[in-house]
C-alpha cells in the first residue's frame, strides 16, 4: 500500500531522531526525496540547536546555588534583626557585616529606633469613651429585642407548669416533696460524672449553673406552702449574694442577670409573704432583710466587677422598694413597734424559737455574715466603688517620656479628665440609691427601724458612666454617646503597655 507524504515524513523524522544520516533516509524514500529534503533538513538543524546536557546541568547548578545563597542572606538578615532587637550595638553589627548587608542593617536600625509620634491623649480618651458608649448602646439594643421572646417563653413555661402542678393535697404534697428531694439529690449530690457537685459549686456564668438553678426551681415548684416558698426564696437570695461575692472575689465579671435573679427572688419572697397572715410575716420579713443586707457589704467594688455597672443602681433601687414593701407588709412604719418586734425577735432567737437557717434550706445554706447582719439594721456607710478622684495616671514609660510634650501638653486641662474612674466616682456620690446612711453608734437597732436601701428620691440621677460626655472624636454626626464613662487611658506612647 502506498504511504501518504505525511506518513513518510513521520517515518523519516523517526529515523533521523534515531541517528540515521539524512542522505540515507532520503535514499530509502527516493520517490518523495525532492519534497522531503527541505523539511528533513530543517528538522536536522533544529535538532542540532538543542543545548547539550552538560550545559543544562550547569545552569541548574547555578540556579540552586543562587537559591541557597539567597536563603543564607535572608537568614542572615533575620539574625541581624534579632541581634538588633536584643540590643547589640549597631556599630558592632556593621563591623561584622559584609558591605552588601550594611545598608540593610542600617535600615533595620532606623526602623527599630524611629518611633512614630505618640497619639494625642485627648483623642485616645475620647475614642475609648466613644467605643464604650457604642458598645453599651448596642447591648441595650440587643437586650431590648430579647424580652419579647423570653417573656413569651417564660409565660408559656409558667402556663405549662401551672397546668401540670397538682392540687396541694396532703398525699400529693408528701409525694411531691419526695420527688423534689430526689431531683435535688440527683442534680446536686449524685449527678452523673460529677455534674451535681460541679453544679453545686458553680457560679453565674458557669456551664453547670443552669443545673443549680434547675434544682432551685424544682424545690420551689414542689413547695406549696407560701411560708415554705418564702423561706426558700429568701434562702436563695442569700445564696445568690454569696455567688456574686465569690465572682467578685475571683475577679470575674458579674453578669447583670445574677443581680436580676437576686432581685426577682426578693420579689417572689415578698409575694409569698404577702399571702400569709400578718402574724406569720414578721420573722420572714426579718429574714428577708437580713439576707438582703449582704448587698451592703457586697456592693463595694461591685460596680467594677459588674459587666454592666449602669444596671447596678437600678437593681439596688428596685431592691430597696421591695424591702420597703416588705416592711410595710408588717406595719413597720412605727418605730416603737419595730423596736418591740426586733427585741422580741432577738429574744426569740436567744430562746431558740426562731428557726435556724438550716431548717430552711439545710446545712449547706450559707450563713449570713456577721457584718452583713449588722448592716441589715445599721446600714453602714457605703464606700464609693470608685477610686479616689485625684489619682493620677501613672507616669508614661521612659520611651514615651521623650515625647511627653506631645502626649500631655503642658497646661492641658484634660489631665483632670484623665483621672482614673473620675466619672464613676460621681455615680456613687450624692443622689445615688446607694447613698450611705450615717453610721449609727448604737449597736443593733431594731430590724425595721431603718431602711437598708434608701429609695430613690428627688435627688438628681447619679452621673453614671452612660452620661459621661464623650466627644465622638472624628465621627461627625454621631449622636452623643450614652454609654459608660471613659476609663482612664494608659499613657499612650511608644512603649507598649
Amino acid at each position, binding site marked *: 500500500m502506498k504511504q501518504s507524504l505525511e506518513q513518510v515524513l513521520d517515518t523519516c523524522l523517526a529515523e533521523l531522531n534515531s541517528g540515521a544520516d539524512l542522505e540515507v533516509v532520503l535514499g530509502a524514500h527516493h520517490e518523495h526525496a525532492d519534497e522531503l529534503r527541505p523539511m528533513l533538513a530543517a528538522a536536522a538543524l533544529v535538532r542540532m540547536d538543542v543545548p547539550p546536557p552538560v550545559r543544562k546541568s550547569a545552569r541548574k547548578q547555578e540556579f540552586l546555588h543562587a537559591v541557597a545563597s539567597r536563603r543564607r542572606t535572608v537568614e542572615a538578615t*533575620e539574625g541581624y534583626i534579632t541581634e538588633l532587637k536584643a540590643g547589640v550595638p549597631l556599630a558592632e553589627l556593621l563591623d561584622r557585616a559584609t558591605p552588601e548587608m550594611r545598608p540593610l542593617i542600617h535600615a533595620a536600625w532606623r526602623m527599630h529606633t524611629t518611633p*512614630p509620634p505618640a497619639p494625642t491623649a485627648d483623642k485616645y480618651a475620647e475614642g475609648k469613651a466613644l467605643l464604650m458608649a457604642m458598645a453599651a448602646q448596642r447591648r441595650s439594643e440587643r437586650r431590648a429585642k430579647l424580652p419579647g421572646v423570653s417573656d413569651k417563653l417564660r409565660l408559656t413555661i409558667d402556663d405549662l407548669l401551672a397546668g401540670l402542678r397538682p392540687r396541694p393535697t396532703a398525699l400529693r404534697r408528701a409525694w411531691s416533696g419526695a420527688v423534689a428531694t430526689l431531683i435535688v439529690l440527683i442534680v446536686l449530690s449524685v449527678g452523673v460524672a460529677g455534674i451535681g457537685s460541679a453544679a453545686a459549686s458553680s457560679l453565674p456564668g458557669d456551664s453547670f449553673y443552669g443545673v443549680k438553678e434547675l434544682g432551685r426551681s424544682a424545690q420551689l415548684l414542689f413547695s406549696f406552702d407560701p411560708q415554705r416558698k418564702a423561706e426558700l426564696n429568701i434562702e436563695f437570695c442569700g445564696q445568690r449574694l454569696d455567688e456574686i461575692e465569690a465572682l467578685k472575689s475571683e475577679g470575674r465579671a458579674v453578669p447583670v442577670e445574677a443581680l436580676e435573679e437576686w432581685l426577682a427572688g426578693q420579689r417572689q419572697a415578698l409575694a409569698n409573704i404577702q399571702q400569709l397572715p400578718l402574724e406569720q410575716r414578721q420573722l420572714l420579713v426579718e429574714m428577708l432583710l437580713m439576707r438582703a443586707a449582704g448587698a451592703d457589704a457586697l456592693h463595694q467594688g461591685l460596680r467594677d466587677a459588674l*459587666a454592666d455597672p449602669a444596671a447596678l443602681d437600678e437593681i439596688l433601687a428596685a431592691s430597696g422598694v421591695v424591702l420597703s414593701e416588705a416592711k410595710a407588709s408588717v406595719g413597720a412604719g412605727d418605730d416603737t413597734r419595730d423596736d418591740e418586734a426586733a427585741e422580741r425577735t432577738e429574744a426569740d432567737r436567744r430562746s431558740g424559737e426562731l428557726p435556724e437557717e438550716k431548717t430552711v434550706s439545710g446545712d449547706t445554706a450559707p450563713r449570713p455574715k456577721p457584718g452583713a447582719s449588722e448592716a441589715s439594721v445599721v446600714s453602714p456607710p457605703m464606700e464609693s466603688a470608685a477610686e479616689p478622684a485625684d489619682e493620677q495616671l501613672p507616669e508614661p514609660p521612659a520611651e514615651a517620656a521623650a515625647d511627653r510634650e506631645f502626649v500631655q501638653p503642658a497646661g492641658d486641662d484634660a489631665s483632670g479628665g484623665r483621672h482614673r474612674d473620675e466619672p464613676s466616682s460621681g455615680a456613687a456620690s450624692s443622689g445615688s440609691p446607694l447613698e450611705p446612711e450615717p453610721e449609727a453608734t448604737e449597736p443593733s437597732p431594731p430590724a425595721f427601724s431603718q431602711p437598708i436601701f434608701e429609695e430613690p428620691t428627688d435627688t438628681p440621677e447619679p452621673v453614671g458612666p452612660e452620661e459621661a460626655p464623650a466627644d465622638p472624636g*472624628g*465621627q461627625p454626626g454621631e449622636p452623643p454617646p450614652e454609654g459608660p464613662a471613659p476609663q482612664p487611658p494608659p499613657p499612650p506612647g*511608644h512603649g*507598649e503597655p
Partner: protein
Amino acid sequence: MSSTERRPPLTEEHDLIRRAQDYDPVAFGEIYERYYVGVYKYIYYRVGEQSLAEDLTMEVFVKAMEAIDNFSFRGVPFSAWLYRIASNLVIDHFRRQPVQPALSLEEKLVAAVEHPAQVLESEFTHQALQKALAELTDDQQEVIVLKFVDGLSNLEVAQILGKTEGAVKSLQHRALASLGRVLGEQGEAVA
C-alpha cells in the same frame, strides 16, 4: 501588644472576646487599651500623618465592634484580625482619597504650636522614614512596619498578611534592602 511574649494568655483573650461579643463596654475598653497603640503605630507609618492615623485607628475599633460577632478563634489571634481590619482601612483610604502632597517640614513647623524645636528633631526622622517607606511596595511596607514598629514576630506577621513565615522573611529582606537603598539616596550615611 507587640510581641508574642506580651500576648495575653489565650484563655484570658477568649474571655475578653466573648464578653466583647456580648457588647460589654468594659470589654471593649480593655480591647481598646490593649491594642490601640500597636494599631496606631501601624497606621501612622502607612499613612504618615498623626491626626489621620488617630482617626483611622478609631475607625478600626468601630469596625471591629461591628464585626465582632463574626470573629472566631481559628488559629488567628485577635490582634491579627484587628491588623487586617487596619490594613484594609488603609487601603480603602488610599483608594478613596486623591493623592495629596504631604506637608513640607517647613509647613509642619509653622503649623506646630508648641515646641517647634522638638518638632524639628522628631518630625525629621518621621518624615524621612515615612518618605522612604513610601518607596516600597505595599507588602514590603506592611512587613517591616509590623515587624519593627509594632514588634510582631514573623509568625504574627504571616498570620496577618496570610503568608508563610518564609515569605515574610524574604519580603523583609527585600524591604530592608530597598529601604537601605532609599535611605542612602536620601543622604542617610551608614554609620
